[in-house]
């Protein structure tokens, strides 16, 4: 395949970035998207040029570190797929492919396609856990959890924290990410006890980080590589409203 690329280049967060043009010949349709970028980098290096910085690690669709906007879509054209699991067979011969970093105020660009997503860690730090210390847990089967409940909790826990939900949201809201963790923990008997404090603290932190509000466009669910449902946002709102009512 022969492809044309327009890629966001930005030396660091202090300077302005711009789209630059590249061309790549002899791309194998079985290559993953990131392997195509490897190939481009190998060619840039051969010409003595600075290579394109992008985040990636496991290349198995599970670590959540990769993720760029491809032709305006988070993780590219396929549904429920991370960038590392996208293959070049999804693109046409001589197609022009636009590649940009995930954009949000809370995700500053570090270099080229690399961004800073530590805001998501701080949302988890605010309450995205069960307060249990090591070495004092009761026997596991003393807390039965129905098969259906465990599966529903898993559906929410499957979030890989890639940030695509934020990047595709017109408000740059982290509601899907935050609500997925809230649902995961609130559904389980172990986590239900702290549910109220958790939702308050995590929502407050989300606001403090500069993520926008959710206005229910549901773009997040459409682009989520793990098919995390927007129903979790409804649960988060329900938990939050319940808390406000009970406060009074």
């Amino acid at each position: 395949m022969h492809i044309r690329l327009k890629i966001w280049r930005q030396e660091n967060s202090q300077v302005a970035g711009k789209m630059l043009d590249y061309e790549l010949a002899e791309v194998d349709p079985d290559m993953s998207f990131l392997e195509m970028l490897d190939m481009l980098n190998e060619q840039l290096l051969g010409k003595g040029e600075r290579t394109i910085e992008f985040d990636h690690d496991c290349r198995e669709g599970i670590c959540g570190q990769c993720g760029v906007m491809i032709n305006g879509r988070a993780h590219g054209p396929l549904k429920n797929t991370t960038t590392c699991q996208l293959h070049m067979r999804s693109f046409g011969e001589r197609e022009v492919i636009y590649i940009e970093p995930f954009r949000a105020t809370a995700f500053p660009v570090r270099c080229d396609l690399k961004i800073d997503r530590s805001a998501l860690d701080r949302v988890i730090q605010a309450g995205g856990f069960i307060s249990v210390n090591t070495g004092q847990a009761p026997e596991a089967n003393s807390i039965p959890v129905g098969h259906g409940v465990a599966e529903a909790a898993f559906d929410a826990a499957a979030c890989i924290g890639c940030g695509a939900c934020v990047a595709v949201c017109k408000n740059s809201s982290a509601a899907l990410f935050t609500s997925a963790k809230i649902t995961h923990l609130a559904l389980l008997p172990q986590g239900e006890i702290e549910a109220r404090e958790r939702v308050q603290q995590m929502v407050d932190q989300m606001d403090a980080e500069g993520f926008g509000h959710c206005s229910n466009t549901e773009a997040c669910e459409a682009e989520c590589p793990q098919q995390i449902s927007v129903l979790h946002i409804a649960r988060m709102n329900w938990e939050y409203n319940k808390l406000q009512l009970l406060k009074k």
Partner: protein
Amino acid sequence: MLESKIPDGPLEDKWRYYKEHAKLVNPANRRKLEVIVVGTGLAGSSIAASLGEMGYRVKSFCFQDTPRRAHSVAAQGGVNACKNYKNDGDNIFRMFYDTIKGGDFRSREGNVYRLAECSASLIDQAVAQGVPFGREYGGYLNNRSFGGVQVSRTFYARGQTGQQLLLGAYQALMRQVHLGTVQLFARHEMLDLVTIDGKARGVIVRNLDTGNIERHGAHAVILATGGFGKIYYLSTLAMGCNGSAIWRAHKKGALIANPSWTQIHPTSLPQSGEYQSKLTLMSESLRNDGRIWVPKNKDEKRLPNQVPEEDRDYYLERRYPAFGNLSPRDIASRAAKERIDAGYGIGPLKNAVYLDFSRAIKEQGEPKIREKYGNLFRMYEKITGVDAYKEPMRISPAAHFSMGGLWVDYELMTTIPGLFALGEANFADHGANRLGANSLLQACVDGYFIAPYTLGNYLADEIKTPPIDTSQLAFESAAARVEGQLRALMSIGGKLSADHFHKTLGKILYDKCGLSRSREGLEQAISEIKALRQQFYEQLYIPGGMAINSELEKAGRVADYLELGELMCYDALTREESCGAHFRVEYQTPEGEARRNDQDFSFISAWEWAGKDNPPVLHKEPLKFEFVIPTVRSYK
């Protein structure tokens, strides 16, 4: 020289006795003691969180953008624990025995028994953290069977057990960060260990955001940096996995044990082209229901579904009837290689075997298979474009897990006092072959249940040591050396990329220090690696500057791999037997099975760095078997 510190007495009392006699640090003193933890996978996150909970001051480092990306995330199949929930005869001794036997009698009895003993508590801990394990309809935990074992002791969270366990540990870590007991340094890579008066006192790290070289001091340093299987380039590991932290510690005096024992995983996707950056792993759990076969006819032209039963060779079921498709990984990988080398491989490059679900789908129905392995089938389809519900998967062996690592004693302390190694970064529990679902277990157990005790035992003697001053000469010179190394790499100014050298090294190791080894091949590999290393320092090119620069990060890791790879070959060369992941073609039975030599090789090889251009020095820790008798490992 090598003192394993395994407590005397009956196997079942060793760990209890140790815990009863370990020294303690009182809570007021813990606040004065600092500990550095490098790596935030299961071992790193769990120990950092545990120490934070206990009141120590912890600094946690990882090179990824957040701790949740650590490669523990990718483990799919499950985690072992002898809960005996299925009433199928499981108990601590049986799990201990399976693991010792699985490791081909090349691991320590005391360590392995402790691993089995602590396994049940890990499930309790993870469930309390909210890890959504698979459940029966009545609400109790479900489990399944894994390779090398005849009971059901593997707990799982769909195909994302590693991800979910890691999230549990990560969330525990985040809780401590919020409480201020743990300071988090993401995007920081450890580039040297600092020792003062022979003790580990800190690390030199590079801030990957700014390029700045930073010094951090502590009363103890813990390396939980995972394995180095990525040295083969094509492997199941994440791109960033590396051996640099343990290698730098090795060059500061920590011995490395059994470095040549890298597990080759039997159920990876085959290589399909030269551009490929990794081999994706399909979970071993698939072997519970999938049957492995190749055509009986070398020139089979029919599509797999059209090949009738009588023309298929279910070679694992044929050769190992008792364990069949659930044979341990080394056996299954070697059997696949044997068939592929004999010309029966399938696929365009004839480098794969079939993993067939048609019978399981017929017997259990597609929805059941979908529920058990749905995400794996989806992943397979994404990568290959093939629907494995309709035709068999193609799988092939790939480099996966390092059983070798820093030598540690029973306390998980290396030969450098105050330097501990946890999880895959140490060599301790797996012997010559790791059984499936023991990796997550070892990482977690080291971090949650073992190191919190053994570290306390060490730190109890450190309460009078004031905070470590990083302006000392040892820090000064280590930082200067690291900066010098980075500048030297940047200034080579050749034409070839770090990836080029990594790929070339990987090919040498796959061919000559991979699934099978020979004296001739290993000797060739050593001279080829020496030549490649020389070329690296003449021909490498790194574009860009000293700040954010992935090429510079890669080059540093490849420089270390070029030294570690040579040590792996030395290690494989000296071990004149076949055991576990180490198959020396000169030592096999007439049926092609591994021939172990307990008489001469029942020891752990611990290697000492003897300086650049000097051959490494071998130290031996003899293995004592008091409670089991090493037998010929048969899965027939």
